[in-house]
């Protein structure tokens, strides 16, 4: 089974040279730490920067330089800063090759819910609805089950949706799956996790074809 860092490391293997990538808050943010050597990837943060670098060293924090998670950041050489309209123009206009975000639920047809629990928690969608509606390549990074142990990979989302039929791939602490017309298709198992473990933790339709390899982290 993977921890959050493991999920980030596995998704980092999906990165390709020359890509512009938007990382959501939480597990996705960690991916920036595991970019494979030799790859040039530019990270976009939707509050208005391309070329986001590492966190600053202590004493060099700048209140005027933050990411979408409101964390202090640095700008790499070659970075560009812009307003919110330009930022979402590059998102909606499909100039960003990969979006990675977290989710509370994903359905086996690729719907995603991650912004609201009616009557309980309402934080807002931020840029997530724009991102999932426009990006051709969306990976969800999340735990396979919620804190109560219930599956987050469902036949249908029970929570208000963020987007419909948009998720392409899911990397959890248990598995890598993609979304097909037949439902979730199991691609890889996390180290030490069996196909049966994954089937037990997946409520939505799950396609298992042939031998499922273990992830290489």
């Amino acid at each position, binding site marked *: 089974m993977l921890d959050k860092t493991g999920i980030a490391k596995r998704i980092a293997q999906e990165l390709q040279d020359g890509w512009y990538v938007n990382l959501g808050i939480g597990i996705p943010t960690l991916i920036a730490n595991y970019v494979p050597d030799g790859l040039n990837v530019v990270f976009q943060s939707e509050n208005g920067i391309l070329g986001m670098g590492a966190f600053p060293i202590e004493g060099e924090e700048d209140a005027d330089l933050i990411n979408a998670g409101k964390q202090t950041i640095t700008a790499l050489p070659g970075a560009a800063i812009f*307003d919110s309209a330009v930022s979402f123009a590059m998102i909606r206009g499909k100039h960003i090759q990969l979006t990675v975000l977290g989710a509370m639920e994903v359905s086996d047809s690729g719907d995603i819910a991650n912004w609201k629990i009616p009557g309980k928690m*309402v934080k807002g969608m931020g*840029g*997530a609805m*724009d991102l999932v509606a*426009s990006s051709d390549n969306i990976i969800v990074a999340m735990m396979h089950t919620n804190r109560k142990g219930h599956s987050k990979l469902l036949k249908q989302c029970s929570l208000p949706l963020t987007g419909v039929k948009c998720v392409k791939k899911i990397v959890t602490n248990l598995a890598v799956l993609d979304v097909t017309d037949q439902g979730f298709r199991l691609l890889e198992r996390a180290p030490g996790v069996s196909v049966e473990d994954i089937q037990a933790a997946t409520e939505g339709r799950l396609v298992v074809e042939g031998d499922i390899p273990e992830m290489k982290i």
Partner: protein
Amino acid sequence: MNKIFNNADEAIAGIKDDMTLMLGGFGLCGIPENSIAALVNKGVTGLTCISNNAGVDDFGLGLLLQKRQIKKMISSYVGENDEFERQMLSGELEVDLIPQGSLAARCQAGGAGVPAFFTPAGYGTEVAVGKEVRYFDGKPHILESALTADFAIVKAWKGDRFGNLIFKGTARNFNPVMAMAGKITIAEVEEMVEPGELDPNFIHLPGVFVQRIFQGVNYEKRIEQRTVREKV
């Protein structure tokens, strides 16, 4: 031409109860601190505030929420403010949550004379309820309308008496698009400079969109999530 006002109190003259305001900033980054403090002092109520976020409990728009001066918020993300969540869940505060990109585009459209536009963001979600759907290239889009405000209040790094503005770092965010959409736009700046000091090639927001400008004082620039790495 001289759009300079002496301070925030003078610059916000004419803001009355029940008006609609746009306030620039993302989180606490690039918020018009001086003007928010002046609005708290002035005590106007029943405000509709269009702002990406709602500040934190004791800073930014949270200060206006504490005093119950806001009737309605139009935002994309409000997760950092417990008082906001309490007022919203109890029904005291009316809230319209909209996708961040649509918020930016709606402000820009309002300032640019575009009454509405189609976007894919929010299709199939609560956001799309009651909105016209149209397919372009086989993909569904929803009709979103432009936003304008009685006053837009923005924060810039440097500005001149013509209202030309430049912003610093990611403090730019919503400030330029909101400045475009105010019937009256107030800009507070960290540094007022003489006309000509800002290179015309590098003006982020042309002064035509700004009616009032003043030099702010005592910026706190609070950091919401101070995050650092070890020095190696």
